[in-house]
C-alpha cells in the first residue's frame, strides 16, 4: 500500500491554494472552465500533494508516475497543482496563462509547461494515451503508475470506451482512471444531455475495479488512492462525485460557470470566501 503523504488539513490547504490560483488565472485571462477546474481541485491536491511520484527538478525522470488530464479544458486546475508542486511559480503561471505569445494554452499543453506529459483538449483521447503508457510500464517491468482524470461529459465519446475495453484485457493494474463526475456537461446536466447511469455498473461491466467516492472528502480520496490497485491484474476506476464550481458558493452546480470568468468583484467575493484578503 502506498501511503498518501500529507494530512487532510495540509491537503485541504493545498486545494484551497489551487482554487485561488484558478480564480485569479481565469479572471486575468478571461477564460472559461473555472467550474471544471474547481470540481477536481481536491482530487488534484491529493494526487500532487501526496500520491504522484514525480520530481519538479527532473520533470522527465523516466520512472515517474504519469498524470494525464483527459479533460484538458480544466487545465487551469492542473497548472495550479503543478505550481503548488514546485514545477514553476504561481506568479509565472498567472503571467503566462492564456496570454499572447505564451505557451500556456487554455487546454492543457506539454509544450513549454514543465510537468505536463500529454496535451489534450479534444475529449476522449486521454484514456487511450494513458493506457499506452501503462502498457509500456508493465512490459518494461516498471513500478510506476499512470493516473488519468476524465470528465463525465467525455464518457459520451466512443473512444473512451474503446480504451475502457482495452485496459482490463491487458490487465493494466498500474492504470487509474478517475472520473470527475460533476454532473454538468457543456450544454446541460449529464442526465438530460446523455445519461451515463448506471455509470459504475458500466465500468464494472467493462471489467474495471470500481470505487465511488465523494470527490471533496480528503480522507476518502486518500484512502481510496492508497488502495490502488483495488484488485491485482485489474485497472482501477474511481468515480468521484463532485460539485461543479466547488468552493465558491455562487459558482457551485451552475452551468454558467462552465463558460464565465469571474469579474473583479466576483473574484474578490470568491477569494474572500476562501479566506484570502487582497
Amino acid at each position: 500500500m502506498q501511503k498518501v503523504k500529507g494530512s487532510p488539513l495540509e491537503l485541504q490547504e493545498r486545494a484551497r491554494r489551487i482554487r485561488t490560483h484558478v480564480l485569479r488565472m481565469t479572471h486575468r485571462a478571461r477564460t472559461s472552465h473555472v467550474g471544471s477546474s474547481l470540481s477536481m481541485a481536491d482530487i488534484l491536491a491529493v494526487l500532487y500533494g501526496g500520491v504522484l511520484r514525480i520530481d519538479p527538478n527532473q520533470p522527465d525522470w523516466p520512472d515517474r508516475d504519469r498524470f494525464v488530464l483527459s479533460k484538458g479544458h480544466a487545465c487551469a486546475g492542473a497548472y495550479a497543482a503543478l505550481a503548488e508542486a514546485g514545477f514553476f511559480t504561481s506568479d509565472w503561471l498567472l503571467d503566462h496563462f492564456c496570454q499572447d505569445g505564451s505557451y500556456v494554452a487554455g487546454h492543457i499543453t506539454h509544450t513549454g509547461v514543465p510537468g505536463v506529459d500529454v496535451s489534450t483538449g479534444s475529449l476522449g483521447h486521454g484514456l487511450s494515451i494513458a493506457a499506452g503508457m501503462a502498457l509500456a510500464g508493465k512490459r518494461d517491468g516498471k513500478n510506476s503508475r499512470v493516473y488519468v482524470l476524465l470528465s463525465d461529459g467525455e464518457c459520451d465519446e466512443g473512444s473512451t470506451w474503446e480504451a475502457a475495453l482495452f485496459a482490463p484485457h491487458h490487465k493494466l493494474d498500474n492504470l487509474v482512471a478517475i472520473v470527475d463526475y460533476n454532473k454538468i456537461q457543456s450544454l446541460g446536466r449529464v442526465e438530460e444531455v446523455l445519461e451515463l447511469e448506471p455509470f459504475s455498473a458500466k465500468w464494472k461491466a467493462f471489467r474495471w475495479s470500481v470505487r465511488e467516492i465523494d470527490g471533496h472528502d480528503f480522507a476518502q480520496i486518500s484512502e481510496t488512492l492508497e488502495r490502488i490497485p483495488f484488485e491485482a491484474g485489474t485497472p482501477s476506476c474511481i468515480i468521484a462525485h463532485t460539485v461543479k464550481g466547488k468552493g465558491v458558493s455562487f459558482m457551485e452546480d451552475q452551468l454558467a460557470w462552465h463558460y464565465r470568468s469571474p469579474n473583479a468583484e466576483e473574484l474578490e467575493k470568491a477569494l474572500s470566501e476562501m479566506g484570502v484578503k487582497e
Partner: protein
Amino acid sequence: MRTAFIQTLYEMAERDDRIWLVVGDLGYSVVEQYAERFPARYLNVGVAEQNMTGVAAGLALCNKVVFTYSIANFPTFRCLEQIRNDVCYHNANVKIVSVGGGFAYGALGMSHHGTEDIAVLRALPNMVVVAPGDPVEAENATRAIVEQTGPCYLRLGKAGEARIHARDVKFQLGRAITVCEGSDITLISTGGMLATTVRVAERLSKEGVAARVLSMHTLKPLDEEAIRIAARETPAIVTIEEHGINGGLGSAVAETLAEGNGPRVVFKRLGIPSVYASQIGGQDYLRSIYSLTVDGILTSLESVLETVQLSG
C-alpha cells in the same frame, strides 16, 4: 511491398527493442511471424483504430518506436484526430502503416479505396509522408523512418509489385530517385504507379521521346530541388499517382512550380478525379477506368507533348 515491409520490420526488431507493432485486428498471414517472435512488442488492439492510435502515442511517449498497421483508410481517417493531436502535436515516434494505397483493394468498394490519404496526411505538421514505389523502396523506407524520429505515414501497395530498383539503390527520405534520365519530359510518380511510369517511359523512348522518371517516394518533405531542376532541364512535367487529383503528389509539385522562379513548363496531373469510384473491380481494372494504365497515360501525354512542340 507488404512483404518487404514486414520482413524489414522483423529484422529491425531483432536489433532494436524499442520497436513495437500495433495492429487493428488486420494483417492475417502478414504479422504472425513478428507476433510469435516478439510477443512483448506486439499488440492487437482489436477493431478500434482510435484507441490503437492513442495507445501508440502513449507507448511512443515512453520511448517506443511504434508502428500502427491496418489497411486502406482505417489507420488514418478513422483516427485522424488522434493522429493530429496525440501523435503529431507530441511529435510522437509513431509510424502509421497502411496497406492497400489506391485501388489495391479495388473490388472491395469505396470504403477500401485509399484515394485521399496523401492529401490529408500531408497537411499535418510534423508528419513525414512516404509512398514507396517498389519493394526495394518499401524496404529502404521502413529502415529510414525508424532512423527518423517523429511521426511518419508509410503508404504501401499490397503484394506482388514489380521490383524496379537494384538492391543497392541510394534511398534517402525527401530525395527523389531518378529512375531514368531524359530531357524531353519529366514523369514524376509516387507509390505503386512507378512500374507503370517506367513502362510509359520505355514506350516514349521508342517514339523518340526521352522521358526522365523521378520516383517521388517521399511526399513530405518534398524534394523541391529535383522538381526545380526538372523544370529547368525539361519543358514538361507530368505527375502520376493512384490517388485523388486534389492534394496529392500533383498538387504538391504544382505548389513548388507555382512558387518557384523557374522557367514556365507545361504541367499536368494524372490521377483520380474528385469522384468516388462506385464502380468496382480489380486494381488494374480501376486504374484503366481512370487512364492510369500505360496506354491511358500515353494518351494523356499526347496533348502535353503537342503543347510542348507548339510552344517550342
